[in-house]
Structures are given as structure tokens and as C-alpha cells.
């Protein structure tokens, strides 16, 4: 059980992140959930790549244990993507707040439905 503790944490983060995205109505909280969800994936990549005591793969007689650099690089890219997503999501939340006066999903849906009914009439 303890051998797999990193995976357990990964799965816990993944599920709780996804739960927050679905269950919360506040646009900012949703983004926080999304961020947690994405972070869990970073862990999933990094954990198997890291060896205890391993270093970057530098050819040198002092080191014999290396961590796999590829997942690290991939996740660096993924983090950049995650940051961009977060920035865009927050920017949208700001714009929504300006346009609707609220960042609660229920309120926005209510306003949208009202607008729709006004159009069809």
C-alpha cells in the first residue's frame, strides 16, 4: 500500500479536482478544481521518471543514477499549457463578471435563459 502512496495521492488529486470542477458553481472555484486536476497529471508523469538519488543525465564519472529527463521536459510543456489555460480562464471570468455582474454559474444560466426567452417572444 505504502509503495504506491504517490499513485494514491495522484488519484486523490485527480478525483477531487474533477469533483470540484463539476460540483462547484463559482467560476473561480471551477478553475481551481481544473488546476488541481491538471496537477495530478503532472505527478503521474513525473513520479515514475524520478529515481531516488538520480540526477540530470550528465555524462560524468561522479554520477551513475539518472532520472529520465523526457517526462520532465514534457511536463514542463504541460505546465506552460496549464498556466496559459488558467490565465485565459481567469480572464474570461473577469469579462463574465463585467458582462453579467456575477461569477456564479446558476445566476449566469438564469440570465442566459431569460435572454433566450426574450428573443423568442
Amino acid at each position, binding site marked *: 500500500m505504502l509503495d504506491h502512496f504517490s499513485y494514491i495521492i495522484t488519484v486523490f488529486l485527480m478525483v477531487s479536482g*474533477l469533483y470540484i*470542477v463539476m460540483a462547484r458553481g463559482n*467560476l473561480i472555484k*471551477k478553475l481551481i478544481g*481544473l488546476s488541481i*486536476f*491538471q496537477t495530478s*497529471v503532472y505527478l*503521474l*508523469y513525473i513520479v*515514475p521518471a524520478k529515481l531516488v538519488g538520480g540526477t540530470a543525465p550528465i555524462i560524468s564519472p561522479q554520477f551513475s543514477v539518472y532520472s529520465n529527463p*523526457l*517526462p520532465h521536459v*514534457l511536463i514542463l*510543456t*504541460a505546465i506552460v*499549457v496549464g498556466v*496559459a*489555460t488558467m490565465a*485565459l*480562464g481567469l480572464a*474570461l*471570468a473577469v*469579462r*463574465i463578471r463585467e*458582462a*453579467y455582474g456575477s461569477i456564479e454559474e446558476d445566476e*449566469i444560466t438564469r440570465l*442566459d435563459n431569460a*435572454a433566450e426567452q426574450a*428573443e*423568442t417572444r
Partner: protein
Amino acid sequence: MSLLAHAPALQVVLPLVSAPLAVLLRHRNAAFAVVTAGAWAAFAAAIALWLQVGESGVISYHIGNWAPPWGIEYRVDRLTSFVLLLVSGMASIVLPYSRASIEREIPRELHYLYYAMFGLCLTGLLGMTITGDAFNIFVFLEISSLSTYVLIGLGRDRRALSASYRYLIMGSIGATFIVLGIGFLYLMTGTLNLADMAVRIRDIESSRPVLAALAFLTVGISLKVALFPLHQWLPNAYTYAPSAVTAFLAATATKVSVYVLIRFYFSVFGESLVFAKLPLPEIMLLLSLLGMFAANFIAIFQDNLKRLFAYSSVGQIGYITLGLSFDSFNGLAASIVHLFNHGIAKGAIFLLIGGIVAAGAKAGTGPLPLSFDRLAGLSRRMPLTCFGIVIAGLSLIGVPGTAGFVSKWYLILAAMDKGQWWLVAAILASSLLAVAYVWRFVEAAYFRPAADEVRREAPLSMLLPAWLLVLGSIWFGLDTSVTLGSALDAAQHLIGSKP
């Protein structure tokens, strides 16, 4: 080395470079020129690649001369070049159109950003298509997705913002699922190169992580494909995005995602795993049928023309995935050719709808002149626009002589190969639903009395690109050497010889 040898790289790099240039230039005309030039160059590269693949088979291009599986490989086969043709072709047509269209839909000072985002979106879609590297797919997917969210958010209605936000959440979940799937595959195979992965996966294909990867990839990509019932982001996003954006996305974004699905199913996991050992075809068949009927049925009752055709897109995607679920030569060919045929017909319709919006904005009748009341008697005001929508609508229905008929023919043939007569009946019945929603437009535009009968067509720079696609959806119904030829070749390449 000649320029032609670098066509695979240029395919992606040219639009990629055009985007930051557009931002640096900071002027809408200059940005327009740069990004359009980038798209046209990409289109030229796509044509070159298509011809080259036809002559010499699969092209493998090594980025930075690093040999695969260590370096990133761009791999162009029949299917790839066909999808590249669709994506870059649509961009080349939509960009000139957008100049007049966004004039009325997006504030002027944001125009250069619009072109930059368009260039990035195009880059992402082309990159997803051409790359032979699993993680690269994710990166390009996010490039196209992030720029798509921005493009949708540029819509005038404030609902564009909430639609964009919802798509961002759904899309990011989908993309994260895809990375998860790719991560599992990488952990199991130790490679990211798709071709290499396909070889290494053979020995471990029933292991649990591989199955988990398949599940994550299927769900994640299906979200981007908008496979029913994962389509909820689509109707609002299409309805409130600027017209040109809707047209481009409807014609390309979901199609490229379908392409990625095909790639993973047939080129990585292999059909024996996906279709023979798992109940995936049954599930996909069911969801496709549900999509075909539910979405087409919902479409009939929409009051907003754009939303009507957005739901119709969900239904049409059902046809594409239905073809996939057959796991047969004819089914796959039907899916691939329908990618293209539906793309141009739906693109044409959304471009023409953009014309209605533009003409309405000019006349000052308010923000969204797309409810059926406002469309009454439209044929007297905009005869060319209305006629174009009808023709493209006929292609959606699948009337013989239009491109849609070709796809329908192969889809039914595939159902008959399986001996499933009830499926034949279901496909035909759902296409009757398409008749119903297209005819709602016909009756509103042609039979209801018009408020005024002043002729007010959209500007020529919008009509021409739209009509190019309208004529395309007839042309590709009569001369199918490019479309069907590519699809049959691609299906043969993916699934082996004709059964």
C-alpha cells in the same frame, strides 16, 4: 534540399510565424495580409503534400534531422494529407471572408488579434494532423483549443463569454484526459512516436494500463469531437461565436479530432484490440445513433438558425462515428469522406448565415437577426444567400448529386455489408429529420411574407467564398476523384485490403 522536401514543416511553420507577426504589426490590414498569406501558403503546401503522397506513398519528415523515435517525426499519409487539405483549404476560404464579416461583429481595435488567434488555431489544427508524435498532438491540440476559446469569446453577445468559458472547462478536461492516456501509453511503451508505439504495444495490448489509456483517449477525444452526449459545449459555442469563427470551427475543429481518434484507433491500438476485444463498437454505435436522432430532432425545434445548424453538426458527427464503429472498409471510407463533405457543406451554411448577420447589422435590425421571425421572406432580400443555404442543406440531407450523397451511399453500403437492415432504416430515417430542419428554413425564407423587400445581399467578399463552398458541395458530389479517391485509399491503408 529543395523547398518541397520541407513541405511538412512549412505546413505548420508558416501559419505559426504569421500569428506573432500579426501581433507585432498591430494593424488590421497588415495582420490580415500576413495571416492570409500564411494560410494560403499552408494550403499550397497541403496540395503539394497530397500530390507527393499520391506519387510516392507515406512521407516521413524528421524535425531537426533527429531520427525517430528519438526526434519528432511528421508523418504524412493519404488520410493526413486529405485532412490537411480540408483544414488549410477552409482557412484559405474563411480568412478573406472574415475581413468584411468581423467588421460588423468585432471591435476594430481587436481585429489584428483576431487574425493572430486565427493563425494560431490553424497552426494547432494542422500540427495535430501532421505530427507523428503523441505528446506533440497534445501540445498542438492545446494551441488550437486555447486560440479557439479566445475566438469564441470575441463574439458580440455576452453569452459568447459564458459559452467560451464552458468550452474551456470541458475542453481542458478532455485535453487532460488525452494527456493521461498518452502518459499511460508512454509509461508502458517508453516511446512517444506513434509508429514505434504501435509496434511495441502489440505484446502488451491487453494489459490494464493500455486499456485505461484507450478509455481515457476515447473519452477525451470524444469530448473534442462532440460525440453525443459529450456535445454540450458545442451548440452555444457555435451560436455565439463570430460567424467566420463558427464556419471555420464547424468545418475543421471537430473533424481534426475525429482524425486523431482514427489515428489512435487504427494506427496505434490496432483494430483487433479496439473493435474485436472490447465492446467499444457497440457503445460507439449506440451513441452515434442517439446523436443522429436526438440532435437532429432537437435541431428541428430551434428558433435560432445558427443553433439549429449547430445541433445538426452534432447529428452529422453521429454519421461519422457510426461509420467508424462498423470497423469495415466501406464504413471507414464513409467516415473519412463525410469528414470532408460535411465540412464544406456546413462551412458554406455558416458563412452564408454570417452574411445574413452582416446584412442585418448594416440595416440596424439588432444584434441577432437569426430567429425565424426575422428570417421571414428572406429570399426576397437575399436570394443568393438563401439559395446557397438550400443547396448546402440538400448536401446535409444527402440528396443525390450533392457531396452528402456520396457519404450516405457508402455508409449504407457499410451497414448492408454487416447485414444490419435496421441500421439502414435508421440512417435513412435520420436523414429525413435533416429534411425537416432544412425545410423549416425554406418555408420561412420563401413562403412567409417579408417585412420589406429591398434587396440587400451580403458584400461580395463574403458571398464569393461562401458560394465557392456551395459549388464545392455539388462538385464533390459529381466528381469524387479527390474526395472519395483519398478516402478509399486512406481506408485501404488503415484497414488493409477491401474485405
